[in-house]
């Protein structure tokens, strides 16, 4: 296990160095080349190639760039980033230092979610163990709680103006970010993996993985499993492997939420052998996102679960763009009415229409994620939604309908 530790507590600097050796002396160009060769994809949710991102910032930096290590983790079903920071803070710091060298950054900011106290403490302690020149360049900033505060333009906006709401782009952070300087906003898991690739070379990373997928990654497995928590897998492992790593399914399961609230539902029987990697999932219209794998037990109603998620997403709108504020609120309202089996006539059609209307019409991708969640729910739970529109819940009335996965 590279990214998660069996021992409790944060790894100290001496143990970290003993385990992995010193920070490699690679130049900026060599670092970027290693990352590009490894094909490492970002772990914040967007999956953008890490090497390409570093190169884009490096080209604009002229020595004054900023590295923003994003550990905000606003996704409620994701625990990987805070676990990583709490267990292996030095690996994350190494990644940030290497990124700073690669892009020519003078400042490093660790942007950690307000509620992730253990992670904050671990990072504080780890930074205190570092030499003075590192401590002077790095600081820890608490991200306001909230789903969108981890969005990259929101993080930059918070650091510039104390307002953790997304801004209109262009310019994107890699062009002009914190203090108007080119800013690399990178998820902490991506930075940790970069730190490992820098030490062991891209061939090490390419040697891991199943099937055609390369590399390793963290998942947060939750829901109807025996050992919910953060699990490390080789990418390309299947959904059944992930369930196995989490101690196996607890009872009957028919659906799984992949990628978080921002992701989508998938039918478990159809996707039990789904390889968990970006390319395989994309061809099936799914996404790994930030690695959330949440199993919904068969005796739970998919409409009610979806109503809970969409209500949360609507409440987390930054409230800057009309289509998001009103659209998500309306979709949530209609879904709640359906979940309660007291819909208005046409509520199901309205959800379909409104989901189509909000996509791409906000300053950030928050409404897009919500719409994608609804779209997947309407597909996977098609029968349940139709039943609820007729004021019947299939889950409660027909439990025998659901077969074992």
């Amino acid at each position: 296990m590279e990214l998660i530790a069996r021992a409790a507590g944060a790894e100290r600097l001496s143990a970290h160095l003993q385990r992995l050796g010193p920070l490699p002396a690679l130049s900026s160009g060599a670092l970027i080349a290693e990352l590009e060769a490894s094909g490492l994809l970002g772990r914040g949710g967007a999956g953008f190639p890490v090497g390409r991102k570093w190169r884009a910032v490096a080209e604009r930096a002229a020595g004054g760039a900023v590295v923003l290590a994003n550990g905000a983790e606003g996704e409620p079903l994701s625990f990987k980033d805070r676990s990583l920071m709490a267990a292996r803070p030095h690996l994350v710091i190494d990644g940030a230092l290497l990124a700073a060298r690669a892009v020519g950054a003078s400042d490093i900011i660790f942007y950690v979610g307000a509620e992730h106290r253990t992670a904050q403490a671990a990072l504080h302690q780890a930074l205190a163990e570092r030499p003075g020149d590192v401590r002077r360049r790095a600081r820890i900033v608490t991200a306001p709680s909230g789903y969108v505060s981890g969005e990259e333009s929101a993080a930059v906006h918070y650091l510039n103006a104390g307002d953790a709401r997304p801004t209109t782009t262009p310019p994107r952070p890699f062009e002009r970010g914190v203090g108007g300087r080119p800013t690399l906003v990178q998820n902490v898991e991506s930075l940790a993996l970069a730190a490992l690739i820098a030490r062991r070379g891209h061939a090490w990373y390419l040697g891991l993985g199943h099937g055609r997928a390369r590399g390793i990654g963290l998942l947060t497995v939750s829901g109807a499993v025996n050992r919910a928590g953060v699990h490390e897998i080789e990418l390309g492992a299947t959904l059944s492997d992930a369930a196995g790593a989490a101690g196996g399914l607890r009872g009957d399961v028919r659906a799984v939420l992949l990628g978080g609230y921002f992701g989508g539902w998938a039918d478990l029987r159809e996707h039990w052998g789904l390889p968990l990697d970006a390319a395989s999932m994309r061809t099936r219209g799914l996404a790994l996102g930030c690695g959330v794998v949440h199993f919904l037990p068969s005796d739970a109603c998919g409409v009610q679960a979806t109503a809970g998620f969409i209500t949360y997403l609507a409440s987390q709108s930054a409230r800057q763009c009309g289509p998001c504020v009103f659209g998500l609120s309306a979709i949530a309202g209609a879904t709640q009415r359906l979940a309660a089996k007291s819909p208005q006539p046409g509520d199901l059609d309205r959800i379909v229409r409104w989901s189509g209307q909000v996509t791409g019409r906000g300053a950030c991708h928050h409404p897009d994620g919500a719409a994608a969640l609804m779209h997947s729910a309407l597909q996977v739970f098609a029968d349940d939604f139709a039943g609820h529109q007729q004021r019947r819940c299939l889950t409660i009335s027909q439990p025998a309908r659901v077969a074992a996965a």
Partner: protein
Amino acid sequence: MGEVLDIDRIRCDGHGLCAELLPELISLDDWGYPIIEPGNVPPSVVEHARRAVDACPVLALRLARTAALAPR
């Protein structure tokens, strides 16, 4: 070379004048916010597009040049 309509979604406050002045390309959703046809603005309505940009009470609309022709 062409021109596209660019909208600042944060500034936009759903006034709806743009849809009145450029119904060819702009319609309103259920809450009064503009849905804009993607792609280049056809030359036949460019003047109307300019008027729509001018009429926006919060300057949320912009006509921007594009380097390459976007599909219409």
